[in-house]
């Protein structure tokens, strides 16, 4: 377990220590920034223009799916392919750690970075939800709750440092947690919120969108991980992953982009299958509009599980060969 955690930490910090992580982050945020600008224009538009579900402005767009198509392979291409090309895979496979743990550690680290990728988009929420804040001013309980900010700082130190800063990080994280809890208890006794906030736009589509993004991202990352375990070159891993991802993206892209018109009877089995597989359609029709469909979640989770299993099998096969 310990070795799994340290492998996970190594993989996760690897994204921040290599340029590829930052390049991905910056390009992703630039793309999302453009889409946010487009959505904000609709939310503040004059006349008959607008967007009913703001998350649709972000996620129901061909541009977003082009970004989303490229990002997971960028994150996963190096995971095993790099190890194979540099020859470190053999030493990893002979290390006292099970193949399953290796795969899971790499996958979770990658997923964690994917979550980090999305975290800055939370800054968009005040606009996307038309939030207004009522700040009552600083006092002791609020100060204690604000101490909770020490938690992410401490955890960052824990994850990224290897020297004396690590215990300091643990202390900060624990101290922040205690401070936040005490502050929260005090605020609840006063029946007072930390900050008064109201939302003018239904927040649930945002919640469902992030749920969908998490699971869909996990699926694409697992696919990329599996492809990465099969090939030696990072470039080929990325290209093959892009091609495989098309199975889940192309149909939706064609329909969203207006290149393909749905049939007259949208209940046709063939169209239903296309709809079932097309992640962009899942988002434009369901997640970004506050609807959760069991079919989509099961598809994402089952493909994720299957791909992780196949990755383990791929490693196992390599060990036997």
């Amino acid at each position, binding site marked *: 377990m310990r070795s799994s955690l340290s492998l996970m930490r190594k993989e996760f910090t690897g994204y921040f220590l290599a340029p590829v992580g930052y390049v991905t982050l910056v390009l992703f945020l*630039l793309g999302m920034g453009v889409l946010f600008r487009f959505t904000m224009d609709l939310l503040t538009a004059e006349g008959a223009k607008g967007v009913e579900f703001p998350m649709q402005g972000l996620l129901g767009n061909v541009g977003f799916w082009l970004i989303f198509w490229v990002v997971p392979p960028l994150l996963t291409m190096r995971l095993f392919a790099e190890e194979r090309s540099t020859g470190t895979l053999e030493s990893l496979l002979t290390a006292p750690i099970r193949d399953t743990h290796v795969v899971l550690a790499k996958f979770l680290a990658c997923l964690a970075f994917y979550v980090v990728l999305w975290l800055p988009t939370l800054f968009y929420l005040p606009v996307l939800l038309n939030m207004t804040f009522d700040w009552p001013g600083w006092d002791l309980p609020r100060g204690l709750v604000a101490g909770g900010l020490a938690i992410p700082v401490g955890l960052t130190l824990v994850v990224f440092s290897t020297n004396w800063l690590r215990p300091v990080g643990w202390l900060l994280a624990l101290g922040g947690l205690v401070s936040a809890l005490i502050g929260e208890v005090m605020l609840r006794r006063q029946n007072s919120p930390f900050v008064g906030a109201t939302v003018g*736009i*239904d927040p649930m589509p945002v919640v469902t969108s992030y749920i969908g993004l998490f699971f869909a991202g996990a699926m694409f990352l697992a696919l990329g991980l599996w492809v990465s375990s099969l090939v030696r070159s990072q470039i080929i891993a990325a290209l093959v992953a892009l091609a495989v991802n098309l199975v889940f993206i192309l149909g939706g892209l064609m329909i969203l982009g207006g290149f393909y018109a749905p049939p007259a009877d949208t209940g046709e089995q063939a169209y239903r299958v296309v709809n079932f597989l097309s992640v962009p359609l899942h988002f434009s029709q369901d997640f970004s509009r*506050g609807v959760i*469909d069991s*079919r989509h979640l099961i598809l994402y989770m089952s493909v994720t599980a299957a791909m992780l299993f196949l990755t383990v*099998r791929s490693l196992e096969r390599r060990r036997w*060969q």
Partner: protein
Amino acid sequence: MTKGKRRRRGSFVLFAVRALGVAGLFSVLLGSIGLWATPGQSPRATIAQLRRAPSTFQGLLFDTPDWWLRISYWLLGVGMAVTLAAVVITLLSGLARLAGRRNVAGGNATLQTALCVALLIGVNIFSFEHYRRWDWTGRTLTWAKWRPAMAPAARFAPQFTLPADVTNDLAQLRAPTTVVVYQRHKTFGRLSDKPDAYDYAAERKVVEKVHDLVHQFREFGPQFKVVLLDVEDEAYPARLQEVTDGRPALKAAIDAAPENSILFHTVRSTPGADGQATTRESVQRLSFNDFYQLDKTASRQAGNGRGNLVLLPQGVESFARRVLAVEEKKPRVGIAVIHEWLTTEGLEDYSLAGLRKSLELYGFEVTDIVLKKGWTEGEPVSAAYTLGESQLERLEEDLAEYDAVLAVNRQELKAVSAVLEKLKSKLTLDELNRELRQMLRGQRMSDEARKINIVRLEPQIEALKEYMAQQERERAELVAQIDRMPAQERLAEARRMTDVRDKMSKLFAECDLIILPRMTLRNAVVGDRIPARLYRLDEAQTKAVRDYMAGGRPVFALFGPVNEPPDRRQPAPPPGPDPIEALFAQIGIIFGNQTILFNSEAKAFSQRRVSLLATGGEVEIPPVQFEAPRVARPRGTLTAGGETTSTHPNAISESMKIVAGAAGSADKLEKLKLRHPRPVHFTPVRSSNGSAAEFLFTDADSWNEAEPFPTREKTPRYEPAKADDPNRGTRDEETRGPFPIGVAVETTIPPEWQNETRPAGAAAAMLTADGAATAAAPLRLAAQALVPEDRYDPPGYRPTHVRVAAVGHGGLFNGPELSPAKEQLLVHTSNWLLGRNERLPRGDQPAWQYPRVELSPRRAAVWQAGTLVVLPAAFAFLGAIVLLVRKYR
């Protein structure tokens, strides 16, 4: 052979097999492309053909004349065979390798992989067919519960959840229903000259909402088939053909739909008397407007004038109700007019063809009832017959004419044939002259004349025979036409009825609503009119109308002005009030005695005095309004006792205001203009439901004129009533507008309609109605004293509620086509009269609009720069620092 050599040979065989397999696949690909590129061919069709008749395979390969196609078949066939062989060999070798001890682990991994893929596919197939959807919109967040102050500013409604009662009803529906979403790209904007951005945006959004709703319907099971038809789609003709194949009623409904519509279609098979199943199609149409209404006024004003798209939801219940009631009987509307030219199949501008078209389009049936006949024989007489009867009568008269002509022709043929026979016989000339002496009239026939007559008569007989055959054919066609007429026996029976009251009552009884149009004045400038006296019904007919209303059934009266030009050559109208108008007076609806003229018409009147070419046709009159203009209190909204006591707005007025809102106006439709209406007042002499009666008003820029026809001596213009004017203080006093010109009331019928021995109450009611022609103020006060105390609730009286609408214009719905504005007025008034309030546009639900975020220009700029530049730049900066630190280390 050494082990290494064997391994190398094995590898080579494996390589060869795999290469063959790949080559086979490539060959299949090329063959498929060849088939696909050939018109009328496809790999799927070829496979289907081979499955039907495998023996044709050889023929395809060797006997196909088209060499391109033959090569394609070869590529496909050989490729499939090679691929199949490669797969089989690979599988067999795989099994052999699995059997080997050394490859057990690898084989195990392969097996696990196969199982994993199978499981993945299985799980998803199961999930594909058995799924659940959760609509999280409108839910309260958990954090809002434990942080009460963080609750949303507004309560958000679920967007994709049908109401429980609708869900229950739809779940029980088993009949296969096809829902056709027909996009004609015409809905919003029909009411104005030119659709604008709001109209187009509304259409897009409502299409999206309709798609969402039908998507929810599909979740109820395979009995709902949803089809989308878009006229702008290139494949539209083919799709239309596919959808309407064998469904003529659906095809007709789609062709007739003038705007974006949702059509619900079912086919029900019932065993017929002869044992053969008969199918009955049922189609219901719903306009997109019945689902969402655009409020253009609110749209423009939203956000402090910045604008937004504001739609008024009409509720999914109306949508679901159409699905559930797709087979319901259509309400029948009877149109009672005095001449066949004025019926729905009448003469151009005089006809009500547009009314029929519109009503049928909105799911009504229309029947014409003609109330007078004998127009060609002087003064018409009272009657009651349908166009069907009239048509049958006409056909039967034609048939009799054919019979008479044929009888004459037969006689003629017989006579001519006899003569020819004699001419051709072996009779001598003397004998012939003797036989034909009557025809020869003293002359003698020679041999030469005999021959000439034979030559002349033979073609004549042939021509006559041909003519008779033609007549016989036409007669047979006529007979067939008569046989084809629906309910012939009933028509014949109806024709046998001679009692007008009974017959009219019988015809009315088959209708759910009666419309009484009386188009009178069309253009006062040129005197284009139909004299009002022609519309006067006799006592029997009046009683038939009264009996119909006494049964609680609705009537829609469209009565034009009764003013006549001062022409002494015209017959004088009969004395006393019109009996039908008197009937309406008994329930408080008083038709004014003047014609309303608009100030804009004054110019046309003065032009007519100097030029006969001035017809007044281009006069621009203001549109009618659905709410009394605020410039002055409209005449007629005061009762004898003081203020009107209506507590609710008029339902039709409210509906039309919503319709007007879609055209960008609060209370009027620019296209709905009525020239020469007459005032219609309502005096609540009976108990009513408390709603306002008036729903149509003229513009304030008008006056009521007793003499609306311009003459050499007088040009109609507004002149205030003088002090000694007997009309002063009454509703007939000449005054400026606005005037009510349309009322719709739900009231109870007078007791004397149930029991004719209460005439005093009726007379008193008429007199108390202060708009009555003879009711001067002193007489009115005297009449009020006559009203018995138990007038409204006498012993034994069973209050029967009735809905009545009256508009002071007879030609409102005349013409071959109705404008969308008139169509809306007609349909909403008819629905209200029939008690189908749920079909009226409603504005009681929270309006839908795009969410908006208010940001000052600076905040917007900060947000834009912050998200587009600062956030990415922050991570770029972080990355640069990290890389620099790493390099430094």
